[in-house]
């Protein structure tokens, strides 16, 4: 048994860490938060040049042809550094959707450009503040044309194309959902940036009005494909979450060691010590569940739905707690705009909601356990 990353993967992680420590200090996401740019183009360009956008894309399609474990360690560092780039949309979602469901022609058409950064892709599922389900989706696909509004679409304002989930009839059944590739710069597409809890990651409302839609996968397989892509993305996001949560713990520790009250370091008070111990515990549970997800993803194991849900639930809980208690550990200064704590609070909540909140994943996890037990 070997339940760890290889030395090569650890080396890659270390490299990514060094790169992002240098190129993505918290001033970088703060710049996006306080400025008008949707993402940091210089950082994005540098990331593309490192080849990270093509890590899991096979060499024949212009990628590095490395495995998912390599992508996991990069994801962890991107999460740690709050990198304000459209990486997750383009790599975890769009690239994965094409790898999972694309025809060879589609792969040839899109993957090399995704790898090279020439194209940015995304995935459009949500339609406002509601749980996106076959029965609640109203965006309609008919005769190769798509109409409806998707909101929020991650990086929808900067992506070149989106994988769009739409219904082909109003039956509400899973088989009524189809995926399409839609050119976001094409005719019949309007998009507008929208305000979210974490402006360091750009989101948009995208409205389709009879826009051209290129089918991705079978027209009755859209929901199953969405779930499959989301399971895969959940593992990758869980590494971003674990990376962010660990950084919160480090920041909380540093602050508590340097802050004095009642004549002593606040880190010497049990209330703080036990809070940080609880952060550590949750982070370790999140990390271990994420590792299992990484194993399932990298081996395409049948356990993936269970492993992905476990990783997502556990890592979301860890980051949520760590980001809240990071502020609490700082006391008054912690809830000021000038301190970086809130950057993590924002990102933590964004990541826990971006593929749908843990509530729905818990339900799916238990369903998967029931299926396994019945089998």
């Amino acid at each position, binding site marked *: 048994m070997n339940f760890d990353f290889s030395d090569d993967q650890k080396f890659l992680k270390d490299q990514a860490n060094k790169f992002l420590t240098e190129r993505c200090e918290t001033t970088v996401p703060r710049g996006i938060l306080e400025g008008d740019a949707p993402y940091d183009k210089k950082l994005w360009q540098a990331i593309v040049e490192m080849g990270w956008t093509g890590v899991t894309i096979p060499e024949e399609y212009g990628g590095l042809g490395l495995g998912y474990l390599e992508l996991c360690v990069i994801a962890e560092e991107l999460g740690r550094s709050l990198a304000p780039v459209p990486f997750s949309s383009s790599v975890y979602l769009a690239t994965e959707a094409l790898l999972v469901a694309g025809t060879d022609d589609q792969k040839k058409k899109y993957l090399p450009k995704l790898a090279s950064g020439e194209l940015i892709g995304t995935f459009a*599922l*949500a*339609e*406002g*503040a*509601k*749980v*996106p*389900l076959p*029965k*609640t989706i109203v965006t309609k696909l008919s005769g190769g044309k798509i109409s409806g509004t998707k*909101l*929020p679409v991650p990086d929808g304002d900067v992506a070149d194309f989106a994988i769009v989930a739409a219904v082909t009839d109003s039956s509400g059944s899973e088989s009524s959902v189809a995926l399409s590739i839609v050119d976001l710069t094409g005719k019949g597409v309007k998009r507008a940036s*929208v*305000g*979210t*809890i*974490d402006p360091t990651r750009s*989101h948009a*409302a995208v409205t389709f009005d009879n826009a051209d839609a290129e089918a991705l996968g079978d027209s009755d397989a859209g929901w199953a494909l969405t779930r499959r892509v989301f399971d895969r993305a959940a593992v990758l996001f869980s590494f971003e979450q674990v990376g962010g949560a660990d950084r919160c713990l480090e920041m909380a520790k540093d*602050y508590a*060691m*340097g*802050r*004095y*009250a*009642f*004549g*002593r*370091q606040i880190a010497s*008070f049990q*209330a*703080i010590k036990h809070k940080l111990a609880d952060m550590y515990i949750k982070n370790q549970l999140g990390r271990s569940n994420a590792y299992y997800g990484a194993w399932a993803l990298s081996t395409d194991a049948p356990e993936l739905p269970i492993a992905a849900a476990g990783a997502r639930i556990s890592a979301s809980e860890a980051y*949520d707690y760590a980001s*809240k208690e990071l*502020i*609490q550990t700082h*006391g*008054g*200064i*912690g*809830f*000021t*705009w*000038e301190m970086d*704590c*809130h950057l993590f*609070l924002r990102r933590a*909540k*964004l990541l*826990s*909601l*971006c*593929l*749908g*909140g*843990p*509530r*729905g994943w818990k*339900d799916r996890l238990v369903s998967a356990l029931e299926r396994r037990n019945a089998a």
Partner: protein
Amino acid sequence: MDFNDSPEEAAFRAEVKNWLASNATLRTEGSDDPYAGMSEKELLKLAREWQSKKANARFAQITWPEEFGGRGGTPIQSVIYGQEEAKYAVPRGFFEIGLGMCVPTMMAFASKEQLERYVSPALHGEEIWCQLFSEPSAGSDVAGLKTRCVKDGDDWILNGQKVWTSGAHFSDFGIIVARSDPKARKHKGLTFFFIDMKAPGVEVRPIKQISGASNFNEVYFTDVRIPDSQRLGEVGEGWKVALTTLMHERLAIGGGSGGVDLRELMSLAQSMELEDGPAMANAAVREKIADWYVRAKGLQYTRYRTLTALSKGEIPGPESSIGKVVSAPKLQEIASFGMEIEDMGGILTDPDLAPLDAAMQQSYFWAPGIRIAGGTDEILRNIIAERVLGLPGDIRVDKDKPYDELPSGH
């Protein structure tokens, strides 16, 4: 046990109702805040007018003695007034700290002449007061403050920085505690003053919070001159005066923490569709609603118990100390869960796109401050443990050393 007014309470309530009906406009349930979008300056002008009306009718500080413009009333009368006023659209939020904490401290320590000068303008909303205790390196440990005051003839020279000062930017006066003797033991080298916030060397800067709003200020003091006549209490006895202020802060019967509550969550749950049907029918959602409901009601009924003690002339028991330590985390949990019910769309903050005008999202950024301001969760548990339950204090390493020999960090 009886939720009805006593005959005396009923008579007072009738008087209040009557007065309010002739002097203010009823708030309509569900209607927009009539003050939304108004500038602080405009709002302050309206608030001053309303405060003056109230003071003239002796409804402003009901429990104050008549000589100070109150009516020597009972705390329960204050509450009755508050309950009735809450039904009206009146501007609030400018005078509470001054009248609730600063002026009462003055009443305990200032001279007769000073009270004649300052109480009435404060009561009538003509002058506003703020409280200057916390410092960047003295938050939970207020007595660890650094701001220095040095005697210079009949004056004191003040240098340093205060923080988390609500209303400093529109305040005329402030009460402040500063260190007069760094060689003395921590709690012994402090001296207390009231100061003119418009004096030369006082600079007020707003603090931007994570919510984007600025409810607090930093206040910088550079060679600010304070006449010794504005000292409250003896030199070196400032901690004792500060404790009086803090007692008044605690006596203020806390309401909730602001932000969303069960009403909003239930309204959201009724409108959201989950995998298995309406969120309101989902057992996990229902269980959480029930848990939060009994916490909210437990706090509300605890306040009723406190009010009852007050109305009987008793000093309220320690029940009231549990308010914020329950309500602030509850607010954080409800906001978080509300966003989770909104699922992928829960990240939206545009009031036109997010349910309930993005109330859940706003509360999510408001709650972390509430868990800290006015005593962190941790400090409040210490207070309950020590002052309510009588458990021993933590080991103190800072009590018997001169202040300037204590370690300090950021």
